[in-house]
């Protein structure tokens, strides 16, 4: 099976966020594989081990993303592709990324494409379904189980807590939800092997695209931090009195009752 994973390098949102001049300060930040994309990598490896074939991990990003791609290779992916947009795309959006991936996938004959259901940084969840639509293949978002049998795929889809049992046909793009699997940690031999695995670097020119083809349709005009929350009030006294005081505060001060 020809399996692909869409992987994004993301800011670790456990980090403190600093904004200056309407931009996130990211110089000293920690970066990780988007956590939902880790489920995608894990699932891709499991499906390959069961059905054979090859797992290729694809990132649209800059050369810093090589680290996250190597991690995916260390987990067990076979090949990595970095589509480096550093010199060509200044302010891309989801349209941009999907367009680039569409060109990349045009001649790939993928059987299965896996992605995270959302990236924790920009949290739009658009690129997967956009790509599937452009490629004219089926897609199922927020999956929690995947079973492939020949050309058909049986999928559990999380729908706000309910589970839909879905049957569809390959090729299919799925976006992964928590609960699908437990992503493995790269092993030491895995890390050693990953250094020798192929990592191809492309630019949009190699995909016969130029800047205008992928120009964003949306623009971020400002980034700001939410207003600092005032310190909360921890109540004191007997529990009975605290309970009464809390209800009075909710009713009269916060006015939420």
């Amino acid at each position, binding site marked *: 099976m020809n399996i692909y994973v869409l992987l994004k390098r993301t*800011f670790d*949102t*456990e980090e403190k966020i600093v*904004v200056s001049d309407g931009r*996130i300060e990211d110089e000293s930040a920690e970066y990780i594989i988007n*956590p939902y994309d880790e489920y995608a990598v894990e699932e891709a490896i499991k499906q390959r081990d069961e059905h054979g074939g090859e797992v290729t991990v694809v990132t649209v990003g800059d050369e810093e993303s090589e680290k996250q791609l190597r991690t995916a290779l260390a987990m067990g992916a076979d090949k990595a592709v970095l589509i480096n947009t550093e010199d060509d795309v200044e302010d891309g959006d*989801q*349209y941009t990324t999907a367009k680039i991936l569409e060109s990349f996938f045009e001649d790939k004959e993928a059987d299965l494409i896996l992605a995270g259901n959302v990236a*924790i*940084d920009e*949290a*739009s*969840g658009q*690129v997967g*379904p*956009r790509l*599937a*639509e*452009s490629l004219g293949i*089926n*897609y*199922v978002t*927020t999956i929690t189980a995947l079973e492939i049998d020949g050309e058909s795929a049986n999928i559990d889809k*999380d729908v*706000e*807590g*309910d*589970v*839909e*049992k*879905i*049957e*569809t*046909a390959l090729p299919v793009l799925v976006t992964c939800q*928590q609960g699908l699997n437990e992503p493995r940690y790269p092993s030491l031999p895995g890390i050693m092997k990953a250094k020798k695995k192929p990592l191809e670097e492309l630019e949009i020119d190699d995909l016969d695209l130029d800047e205008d083809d992928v120009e*964003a*349709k*949306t*623009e*971020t*005009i*400002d*980034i*700001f*931090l*939410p207003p600092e*929350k005032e310190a*909360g*009030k*921890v*109540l004191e006294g007997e*529990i*009975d009195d*605290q*309970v009464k005081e*809390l*209800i009075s505060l*909710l009713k009269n001060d916060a006015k*939420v*009752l």
Partner: protein
Amino acid sequence: MSKLLVIGEARDGELRNVTFEAVAAAKKIDTDAEVVGVLCGGDDLNGPAQEVIYYGADRVVTVKHNLLEAYTSEGYSQAVLAVIDDEAPDGVIMGHTAIGKDLTPKLAAKLETGLISDATDIEHDGDKAVFIRPIYSGKAFEKKVISSGLTFATIRPNNIPALDRDDSRTGEVTAKDVDVKDIHTVIKDVIRKASEGVDLSEANVIIAGGRGVKSADGFKPLYELADVLGGAVGASRGACDAEYCDYSLQIGQTGKVVTPDLYIAVGISGAIQHLAGMSNSKVIVAINKDPEANIFNVADYGIVGDIFEVIPKLTEEFKQVV
């Protein structure tokens, strides 16, 4: 005058409140806009269509087809694209729900447009609508505009208030025939796990339990409190991992993102991943026996104490006032 389409959404035969909020969002984008509701389904849609008009839409287009009985991206996109083709709107608004998240990127790709997902507010810069949306797990916000093409956005439930219902409003309801076909993803079964009643993402009040609740039984007092307040019960990842409750209740970075008016965190320590899912709630109450718990740093009000003592007392007291 601009024309804005609002794609409505029903759950168990009832329109979701976010549909009415999306109508209000459309009015917020352009007060003078003609707002056209779009409803898809397998049953008669006239009743729901009237509701959308009562909440501010000028008219509604319905698409009824047996293949639209359950949502599939393929079925709904055919129906909605046919309506978009007829109406040539300036903008399209929908709720950022499971269906909204699944459908709108497909439509955006098909229409080759931008899409601003998960907006929590709308402002204006001259004539231009500016969408405000949380990023980095709610730790920051961005202001985003559409730079070319259709104004297309999804809105997070429970953030933009619906307009007041006015059943004296009237508007045209037209049925559109769409030949829905070629559905390749088939829903064979639906297993209901989400609790009956109030949906977490749309609940005004959420009582969430963490590891401090100690057992599945320990959640019972939380359900009783939720019943009294007309709210929903949620959980931290810790409580789900410990199998006190189903993952469908999980609130956090992985799990649901909620913004209720009142969030009561019970026995939740307040890990950063949990805060990502609830820190934008309007009022947060924390109840925890550990006075050092991080949850107290984001709470508006805190009670340090034994949750099994505090919660039943709260439930009794709330009964007096609501």
